[in-house]
C-alpha cells in the first residue's frame, strides 16, 4: 500500500512519541504496538520497522506478533466499523446470517475494508450483552436484535450520514480512494 503525503511524517512522529516513554525492553513490545495503533488506527510497515529498531527486536518478530494477535491491523480500518458478534448466544440465534447480510450489503468479506475505505467488517466473540442477541457493534454503538432487515436499515443510516458529510465537505475525497 502506497503511503499518502504527510502520512510518513505522521507515522514517524507517532512512533517516536510512544517510544519516548518506553522502557525499550522487548516486554514493552505489545503495549507499544497497542499505543501506536491507537494513534494511527493500524500498524503500517514503517511503524513496525521503527518499533523493531527502537526495541531492538527483529522486524520479522514484530510482523509475527502483529499477524498473530486479532487486535492488530495491517491496513487502515474503514471510516465506519461494523463488528458482528458471533459469540455463542448470538450465533445460536443467527449471528452468522446477520454477518452474511452485511457482507452482501458492503460487498466485502468479514475482516476486510471496502475499497473506498468507508466500511470495515469484523466478527467478535461475545460483547457481553447476550440477552439482546444477535448483537452488532456499529462504530462503538451496540445494536441488539439485528435481523437482516435491520442490517438494511443500519446500512441506509450509514449511507445517509456519508451523503450528508460529503455534501458538507464538497468534492474533497480525502484520503479515501485507493488508486
Amino acid at each position, binding site marked *: 500500500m502506497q503511503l499518502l503525503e504527510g502520512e510518513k511524517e505522521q507515522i514517524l512522529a507517532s512512533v517516536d512519541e510512544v517510544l519516548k516513554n518506553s522502557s525499550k525492553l522487548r516486554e514493552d513490545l505489545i503495549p507499544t504496538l497497542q499505543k501506536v495503533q491507537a494513534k494511527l488506527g493500524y500498524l503500517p510497515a514503517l511503524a513496525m520497522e521503527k518499533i523493531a529498531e527502537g526495541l531492538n527486536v527483529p522486524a520479522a518478530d514484530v510482523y509475527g506478533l502483529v499477524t498473530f494477535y486479532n487486535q492488530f491491523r495491517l491496513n487502515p480500518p474503514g471510516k465506519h466499523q461494523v463488528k458482528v458478534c458471533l459469540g455463542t448466544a448470538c450465533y445460536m440465534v443467527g449471528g452468522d446470517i446477520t454477518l452474511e447480510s452485511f457482507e452482501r450489503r458492503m460487498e466485502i468479506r468479514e475482516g476486510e475494508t471496502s475499497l473506498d475505505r468507508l466500511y470495515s467488517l469484523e466478527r467478535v466473540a461475545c460483547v457481553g*450483552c447476550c440477552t439482546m442477541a444477535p448483537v452488532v457493534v456499529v462504530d462503538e454503538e451496540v445494536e441488539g436484535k439485528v435481523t437482516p432487515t435491520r442490517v438494511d436499515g443500519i446500512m441506509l443510516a450509514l449511507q445517509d450520514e456519508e451523503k450528508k458529510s460529503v455534501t458538507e465537505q464538497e468534492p474533497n475525497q480525502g484520503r479515501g480512494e485507493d488508486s
Partner: protein
Amino acid sequence: MSSLTPKELYNKLSQEAISHDEAHQEKTRVMVGTATCGVAAGALKIKADFIREVEAKNLQDEVDIVEVGCIGHCYAEPLAIIAKPGHPAICYGHLDDGLVHRLVEDFLAGDDPSYEYAMAALERNDVFPTFEDFPRGVYEQKLILEQCGFIDARDINSYIARDGYSALAMALEEKPGWILDEVKASNLRGRGGAGFPAGRKWEACIRSKGEEIYVICNADEGDPGAFMDRSILESDPHLVIEGMILCAFAVGARKGYLYIRAEYPRAVTHVQEAIDQARVKGLLGESILGTDFSFDLEIFQGSGAFVCGEATALVNSMEGKMGMPESRPPRLAQKGYRGKPTVLNNVKTFAYVPLIIRKGAKWFKEIGTPENPGTAVFSLVGKVVNTGLVEVPMGTTLRQLIYEVGDGLPNGKEFKAVQIGGPSGGCLPETALDVPIDFDSLQDAGAIMGSGGLVVMDEDDCMVSVARYFLEFTQHESCGKCTFCRLGTKHMLDILTGITKGEGDDETLNLLEELAEDVRDGSLCNLGRTAPNPVLTTLKYFRDEYKAHILEGRCPAKVCRDLLLYYIEPPKCSKLCNVCVGSCPTEAIFTRDDGLKEIDQEKCVKCDNCLKACPDEYNAVVKLSPPVLPSEKERKAK
C-alpha cells in the same frame, strides 16, 4: 514506618469512607447499571434521561445519579436502583424514557414508589418483596457477586465502607504463613477452569525461593459466551485487587499484573481507577498500611487471542512474544514471568480470598461440597428465561440451575442440551441434568466447569451445528504450534462442515471420533486437548442427530441451511398480506397469478426473515428438511 498499626490505620480509612458514604445516603440515589451489558441495552441513555428529568423537576440538589455495575439480572436491562430515604431501595427493570419520566415524577418528586414497575427491593422490608423472595433466591448464594451492582465501582470509599480491605488490615498483623494456611484450609480451587487448589499453587511458588516473585491475575476471559470476570472487574474491582494483595503478602511478591482482555475497555478503566485510588489510600504501593510490605499492580492488556488465557502463552505474550504455549514442566510456580516464580490465578479465585480471610476457612468450607467448597459463577445464556449472571453453591444440580434459577425454557420449548465450559466443554443431555455442579462431577460427565459459560439449548438447536460452532472457534484460535491442534482441528472442522451439508457415512463418524480422541490425547496444551470435547460429547449423546444428517439428508432441528428450504404453505397463505415479500433481502418472494406468495428457491438465501415476518395468525412459512418441495415429493412418490 508509621507508628500506627495496620488495623488502626485501616480504622481511620474506614471511618472516612463510612462518613463519606453516609453523606451520600442522606440524599436520594439513583444507581444505573452501566456495566457493558447495561450500556449495550442503553443504560447511558437512561442515565441521561434521569439527569434531564431530574433537572426538569429541579431536584438535582436532592438526587445523586451514579453508575453501578451488573447485578446479574441482565434479562431486565436497562435497570436502575432507586434508594430514597424513607423507602426501601428498589430495583426497576426494562427502563425507557417514558418510565424514567414516570419514576422521577411519581417517586422522586412525589412519594409514590410506583410498585407496579418495580422488580424487587434490595433489603427486607414490610412492603415489597426482595430478590431473595424470587424463586431463584432460594438457590442463589452470592459471595463474590454480592456487592456487584450495589456499590459504586468507581469510588473506593464505597468498598471500604462495606468492610473492604479489612481482610488486608487483619492479615498484615499476622505472619504471611497465616494467609497461606487459611487459603489451604479453605480448599479454594482455581476458578479458571481446571480447579487446581490455590493454596497448593501458592505454596509451590514459595518453595521455589525466588528473589522476585510475581502475582498475575488472569482476566483474559476468552470463552465466547462468558462474561463473569468482566462483570466482577467492572462492578467490584477492589475485591480482586485486595485478593491479589493478600496473595502477594502470602508468597512474598512485590509486583503484580492484571492481564485483561483488550475487548474489555470498561474493565480496564475501572481497574486502573481502582489501582490509583488504592495507592492514594496507602493500600497499594510502598509500605502498605504503614508496614514494610510493598506491592504494586499494573494492567497488561491482552491483544485478542483466546490461547493467551493459557498460562504459559499468557506469560509469553507479556514478554513480548507470540502467545504460544510451552510444554510443562517447568511450571509457572518455578519459572514464570521473566523466568521467575509466578502465581497465576483467575479473577474469581482472587475474589474469594478477601472473603475467606475475613470470615475464615471454616465458613467457606460450609458452603458447597467438601471437595468443592464455595460457589460457582455462571453466565447463563441461550434458551432460558432469566439470562444473566448467577452464583450458586457448588453441588447445585444443573436442573435446579436451569429450571429454578433460570426459570426454565421460554416459549414452552423442549429442553435438549446444556453446554458447559464453552469451547473446551461439552454438551450434556436431559439425562445428565441431575449431575451436581462441581469440578469433578462435570468432568466425569464429559463436560468441564471451564470458564463458566452455560448455554441452554432447546429442540430448535442442532447439535451438529453447535459442535461445529465451537470447533470453528477453537480452530480459528489455535495458535498453530502443534500438529494435532493446528491440522487436527482443521480436518475435524472440515468433516463437521461436510456433515452439516449431509456429506459422509458411518465411516465418517468413526473417523471424526478417532481424530477427536487423538487431538485430545496428542495436543501440546489444553486448548487442543479440550477442543474435541464438544464433538465427543455430542457424538456420544446425540449420535442420532449426526446420522439423520448424513444418512437421510435431514437436519432434525432444521438449522443446517444446506439441508433445508423455506416454503410457503398455500392453504395458510392469506394472499392479501405482503409482509413476507417486503421482508426478503434478496427479493426471492413473488406473488403468483393466483395471489399466493411463493419463494424462488434459486434466489433464497435462507435468512429466516420471511418466517419471522409472517404474521402469527397465518404462520404460513415453514422450513422443510430434507430440502424437498412437496411437489417434488409427490413426483418422486409416483
